């Protein structure tokens, strides 16, 4: 018996040791997630970098775009007396990080390859760098100094707390990187092409070269008030070769596929949640564009609710004794007859007719919704006012236009056409197979920058007027393509309602030519006037890139007080309107506190909340110092 016990004890002790000791390799296998990939791959990382390229995320549209469009008077409507304040922020400031991380990871992988292999991968790195520099410029626009030169390096032995580069340092660094990229893109040979792993250009280095030069121009125009010489030099470098300059066919209208399995919901469609209040059309802008028959107006703004059928429904309800009314400013465009009983019949549209009459802007002013002149037939502000009851059913109609949410977000769901109360017509947006397309670098942007730089004194092969015309024409063509790719309502007959005169908004070369005939769309050689026109066109072109639009308005002082084109609304005191986003007092929990505090001090920034308008107007980011006050007009 005792013998047995000893045996059992011995077995026990031995088993314990065996159990514990010899299975570390097995444990390594057990503890490795079978659904993850251990080895990196340069071209697949490259694709992810492209997918991560995000200049305008959900929070950008939800917060930032609304803030800046309020400050530079893009939107119409009644604002409160706190028009110069801002609440939450988000969406830019460090967008470059999610691309830069991949750029650095690719570099790290490449550095561990055979030396002979390494040079073959420079193309993909260069393209990735073009995207990260594009984002870095944007990140810096509203906040100033930021970490860049030391950023995104912790994985590779770098710092957890990268230093802030001043905008001067940042731009130097970006130009240095871009020049290196341009060298690779313009002369690379023996490169592993990303091919289909590059969904944008299929690895076409020539097209990426134009994007790289476009980013360079972004930097150049931003330098105009601080280092004009350098700005002009950069412009000349870009302008030296036509191969550097983007044309309409090459524009960077990107998409992220029509679905993805990355668990981020509607990521491929940009984002899932709606961004209510994309921006109400500003009457001043709409009137300017209509006056010049600028067809971009039809794409930038959606049609209002008053089509011919709806107008007739109001007439019918009135004939039945209903109290409903049509807004005066819509009736002004309606041609109708009145029969013996006083019943009205819609005959047609006056003025520019469909689709133009359906684009209606709203006046802008402080608390103007309470002004007597806007309370009755001229009311834009009471969303319940324009209601009709017909056939026992109610419907309320929006009399004015707003910016198209469908251009910044895919798969918005069904679009319901305005119809009389008793009928319904809908169209499903992105029902299948259509990805969302975003607007990145465009030929419109590039050429309008060149026009600006030429007027500022750059020595460029073409005249400012030529760049200007190319820019505006490209912009019109690109807007059309942007809308067609996104299949917005009314873009063609297939996307219109069945109401007979519901006209498609697509346009052709003739419409663009007609627009270009207007004096407001021609440069005349008067530098100040020409500069205003260039900035006005940038202002219009950047309707769907609100931060670029803000930067351009800030650089040019346009819209300008007293202008005959698009005037600055003087109810708003320009000196208390911020020219950058606020920075909060740094939290103690922020590991970057000391670095941030020092950077803010160096820039002369006071940490504030969003209601310090005067401070945020005077304490400007570096490259904005010397730029004109809001509405003051160009000072180059």
């Amino acid at each position, binding site marked *: 018996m005792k013998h047995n016990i000893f045996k059992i004890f011995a077995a026990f002790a031995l088993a314990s040791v065996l159990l514990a000791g010899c299975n570390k390799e097995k444990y390594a296998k057990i503890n490795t997630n079978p659904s993850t990939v251990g080895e990196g791959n340069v071209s697949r990382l490259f694709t992810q970098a492209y997918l991560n390229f995000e200049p305008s995320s959900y929070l950008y549209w939800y917060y930032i775009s609304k803030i800046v469009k309020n400050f530079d008077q893009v939107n119409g409507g009644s604002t409160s007396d706190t028009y110069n304040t801002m609440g939450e922020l988000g969406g830019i400031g460090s967008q470059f990080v999610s691309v830069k991380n991949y750029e650095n990871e690719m570099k790290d992988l490449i550095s561990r390859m055979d030396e002979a292999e390494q040079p073959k991968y420079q193309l993909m790195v260069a393209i990735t760098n073009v995207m990260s520099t594009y984002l870095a410029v944007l990140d810096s626009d509203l906040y100033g100094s930021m970490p860049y030169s030391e950023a995104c390096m912790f994985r590779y032995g770098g710092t957890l707390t990268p230093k802030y580069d001043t905008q001067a340092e940042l731009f130097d660094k970006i130009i240095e990187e871009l020049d290196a990229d341009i060298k690779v893109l313009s002369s690379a040979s023996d490169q592993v092409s990303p091919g289909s792993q590059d969904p944008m250009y299929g690895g076409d280095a020539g097209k990426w070269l134009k994007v790289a030069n476009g980013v360079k121009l972004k930097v150049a125009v931003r330098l105009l008030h601080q280092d004009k010489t350098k700005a002009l030099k950069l412009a000349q470098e870009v302008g030296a070769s036509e191969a550097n300059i983007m044309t309409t066919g090459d524009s960077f209208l990107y*998409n992220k596929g029509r679905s993805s399995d990355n668990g981020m919901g509607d990521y491929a469609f940009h984002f899932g949640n709606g961004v209510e209040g994309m921006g109400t059309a500003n009457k001043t802008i709409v009137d300017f564009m209509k006056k010049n028959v600028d067809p971009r107006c039809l794409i930038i703004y959606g049609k209002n609710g008053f089509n011919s059928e709806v107008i007739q429904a109001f007439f019918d309800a009135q004939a039945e004794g209903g109290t409903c009314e049509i807004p005066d400013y819509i009736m002004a465009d309606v041609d109708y007859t009145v029969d013996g009983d006083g019943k009205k019949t819609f005959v047609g549209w006056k003025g520019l007719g469909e689709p133009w009459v359906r684009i209606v802007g709203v006046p802008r002013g402080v608390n103007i919704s309470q002004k007597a002149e806007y309370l009755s037939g001229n009311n834009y502000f009471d969303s319940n006012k324009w209601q009709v009851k017909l056939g026992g059913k109610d419907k309320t109609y929006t009399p004015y236009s707003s910016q198209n949410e469908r251009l910044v977000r895919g798969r918005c769901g069904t679009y319901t056409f305005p119809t009389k109360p008793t009928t319904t017509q809908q169209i499903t947006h992105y029902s299948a197979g259509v990805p969302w397309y975003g607007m990145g670098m465009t030929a419109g942007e590039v050429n309008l920058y060149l026009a600006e730089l030429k007027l500022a004194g750059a020595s460029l092969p073409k005249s400012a007027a030529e760049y200007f015309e190319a820019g505006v024409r490209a912009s019109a063509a690109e807007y059309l393509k942007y809308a067609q790719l996104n299949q917005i309502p009314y873009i063609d007959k297939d996307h219109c309602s069945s109401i007979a005169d519901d006209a498609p908004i697509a346009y052709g070369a003739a419409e663009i030519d007609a627009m270009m005939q207007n004096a407001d769309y021609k440069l005349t050689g008067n530098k100040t006037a020409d500069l205003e026109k260039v900035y006005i066109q940038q202002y219009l072109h950047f309707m769907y890139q609100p931060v670029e639009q803000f930067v351009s308005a800030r650089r040019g002082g346009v819209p300008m007080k007293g202008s005959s084109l698009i005037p600055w609304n003087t109810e708003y005191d320009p000196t208390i309107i911020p020219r950058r986003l606020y920075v909060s007092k740094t939290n103690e929990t922020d590991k970057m506190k000391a670095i941030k505090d020092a950077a803010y001090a160096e820039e002369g920034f006071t940490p504030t909340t969003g209601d310090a308008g005067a401070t945020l107007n005077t304490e400007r980011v570096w490259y904005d110092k010397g730029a004109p006050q809001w509405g003051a007009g160009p000072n180059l």
Partner: protein
Amino acid sequence: MRKQKLILAIAGLFLALGLNAQNITVRGTVTDNTGEPVINAGVLVKGTLRGVSTDLDGNYAINCPSDAVLVFSFIGLETVEMPVNGRAQINVTMNPDTEFLNESVVTALGIRRDAKALGYAATTVNTEELLTANTVSPVASLQGKVAGVEINQSDGGLFGSTKIQIRGASTLGKNNQPIYVIDGVILDNAISNTGDADWDGNINDYGNQLKNLNPDDFESLTVLKGAAATALYGSRGLNGAVVITTKQGKANQGIGVSFSQTLGFDKVYDTPGLQSQYLCGDFVGNVYYGDEYDKTGNPWSDNFTAYARNDAGVYSLYEQYAVSGWSWGANVDNFRGQQAELFDGTMGTIDVYPNRYKDAFQMGMNTNTHLAITGGNDKTSFYTSGSYKYAEGTTPNNTFDRLSFLVKAAHHITDNLIVDASFNFTTSTPRNAQKNIGEYFASSANLPAEYNTAYYKDKYKGPHGGIASGSYGDQYQNVPAKGLWWDVYENNYQQVETTIRPTLEVTYKALPWLDFKVGGNYNYYIIRGEKKNPGDGYANQGGSYSLSNSLTQQMTAYYGANANYQFNDDFEMHGFLRGEYWDQRSQYNSSSTSGGLIIPLQYFIGNSINTPGQDAYISGTKRITSAVGAVGASWRNQLFVDITGRNDWSSALVYTNGTGNYSYFYPSISGSWIASETFDLPKWVSFMKFRASIAQVGNDTSPYYINSGYTIKKSDFGGLISSLEMSSQIKSLDLRPERKTSWELGIDWRFFSNRIGLDFTYYKENTRDQIMSISVPSVSGISSELINAGDIQNQGIEIALNTTPVETRDLRWDVDFTFTRNRNKIISLHEDVANWIVLDGSVDYGNYRIGSVAKVGSEYGLLMTDSFPNYDERTGYPICGYTTGMHTIFYPRSGEVRELGSMNPKFLSSATTTLRYKSLALRASFDARFGGYVASYNSRYATAYGMSTESLKYREGMTWTSQIAGQTYGMTFHDGFIPEAVFRANTMSPLKKDVSIAGMTYQEAYDQGLVEPAHLQAYGYYINSWGNGVINEDWVKELNYIALREVTLSWSLPTRWANAIKARGLSLSATGRNLAYLLNTAPNHENPEAVRGTGSSNFRMRSFSPYTRNYLLTINISF
């Protein structure tokens, strides 16, 4: 036969060693005072090591000298010494030990220990009391019963999770809940998988696997609190353990049958505060509707007399709701009884419905049927039971059922070789987890006082079957909250959860003082989810269907040796060695339709319009092997000491490359001294014990957590293009196991024949080297680091005071109290953490703008926020802004993150009183929480929108006539007040052009004629709005409550009545649970136990939960 004789002869020889007198064989039966046989009672020849145990029938046979003295002992019974005096038959009756009645305790690894020997705190809960609670979660039933344990219901509803936390939060991870161990099978107690309280309205809480436990089968439940108590459970016992053993069979005379039936009802009896005095409408300055508007076109018209009319000129509920979804409108006294168009287009009168939220609920009903059969012979005993529980929640379509079987058997293959086996099968079906209906009344749909829930809740469909819509001219198109009722009545999700848990253990009693065990168990946990949502479009177009399966399989195998050696009367030693092997695997797969269903209302994956979505993966693979040992000794029944040690080797700490600190050892030592045995104390001191322990527990981490890799992504660009995504986290390559060190001191003193008992514990615990993810500046290229860091300290006291003020033959009155106070402190974090890290919420964003944080030097769960106003130094008043749009003030948020207070309770307490008269018992229990802040989303917005009771204080105030140029000029208002506030810089007088009022108090500016009274209604809105809201008592408060948790009346019927129906026993009980809150300081009369989820850092209320009482009737019959 010959062989048997030979064995017997050898055995006899073996036993005969040391014999020197004439031996005889003594036989007999040991029973307790109820006549039940005592199984496994020790029968020892006094002064020797020779002994046997009684069998399943209480029988024994022992060879001993004819003049020996036999010592009969059993835990919980008084030891009996019986001289043999030559007798061959000695039957013994053992009486309960009056000092240690029921005080054997099941400790870690299922080892039953004498309570007096324990050097640490452990609380055993009467399992009968758990049954009267009748909760789906076995955690909820413990509420108020155990000192040192914080238990809170969550907002999870019928089968949602319940938070249980022992001695504070010891890790910065969200889950600080103890494990549950049932018959040696360790069950994880996962925290509820709920959405963020900031962004997810619905709780969607289906509870965890504990809901599959059947309390009917519980025999004992012990809460092990400190590290010394749980050290033997190893890493998984870091947060304590609740150890449950199930009932087992007894050798009985015949078969025993017991049956119980319960019938319960749940009734919503109250709701958080909703006002029913003011109708739908806006505050002055925003009144774009109604009678006055038609005449004057002025949004400043009197909102108390205005109400929108339809085209026919009749008041219309819908028109009013459409123009203003808030409830700042007219006093109902001005409109009650007026003819109006109702939401469904019919005509009726305007009225208010104070029960509108309560009317959303139904009477919940539940039944539980339990049948158990036990029995056995001299070789085998068994216990088998079946239970079925069915419950309907108070929300329609919210149901739960559970079918549970347990079969347990023990068989003596030989006298020395025993096999124990059990098999548990449970399948439960939670269906349609509780929805956040309250939010529709408080803030999302803003259902106004004139919304009659009872009338409208079934009016959401069009005749075509989808949601009523104006597009199809449906009658109910304008009825609010159609989506809510569609979700409640039409959408359907259920998950069928199956648990299969077999156990097997073989014991070999090698010697009276030594046995060996080998055993193992499995825990299979399978969840099969199915979602059927009909399309809400025209004729049910749309819709979705999904199926999911998740399987987790855990296996434990162990073997070991136990020894228990009595050297002499004074000195005993015991100990064990044990090896363990634990292995876990899980996998998941799901399919779901995409883009709607081809044929509406038909639910199968192939009915998907687009290619169905699918997901499948292996997860949670983990293995731990362990070696465990313990040694202990006792001396003269007054000094006890135990030393344990355990070493774990965990796969979760091994890197893909095969490195890793995966082996960790942790020891414990505990001891107790029974002073009342050592000293001759006054007679009124019945018992005096001191105890102390010190222990360490190690912990690993989640599977795969320390390893990283790329994730494959695929995007459809016409063809699929794949990409590789990097992790945003960098993981330390030298992670160590976490370590918790704890010590505790305690006393257990009893006086006046145990009429007063005091149990006091002081503990201090430090958790160090936590494996945690810390946020780092994302410009570094990573957003978080996985590191070892931190030192969290918890110290506190636990007091249990048990008294029996009255005790006579027929009457006994017990009053028991517990008191728990835990103090938490973050001693250190990590060098890469600047100062504090956010645990839950956000300090400067979101709806709450409050975060619970871990800040060095402060408590775990300190709340911080950027939403205090700034304060004026001169007056101490808050600094306000003035809005010329609304003619009132608001408080700009400071934007600076400041401390708000702690979310942790200052102390918890409970009291239970039981009055027994003969066979009648009446028990009432109370529990209380004092201190700790909570914040409520819905109280905030319901106040901003005029829905809450709190909003009533912002309605009427001073009357004055406005002199401000513009629309208000000459108008008289009735909602004025003079705020105690100071104007911020750049504020100009609304009355006198170009005169600054910056720096003045409102009163000063008012006195100088520079301002008029501020509008109170708009103020009530602004201070609680998303954009301008600040911390205030409308929605952020320190929470104190006292709950009348339970009242139970039970009656054991006289035996002769039972016998009349051929039963041995018959008892009845009636219980009311969650009956009332005697004190409740939650904001806006919210349910104080409705904090979102069960994570330890949750302080945010989101669900606007109603108050529900539970009633239960139970009948127990045994045959």
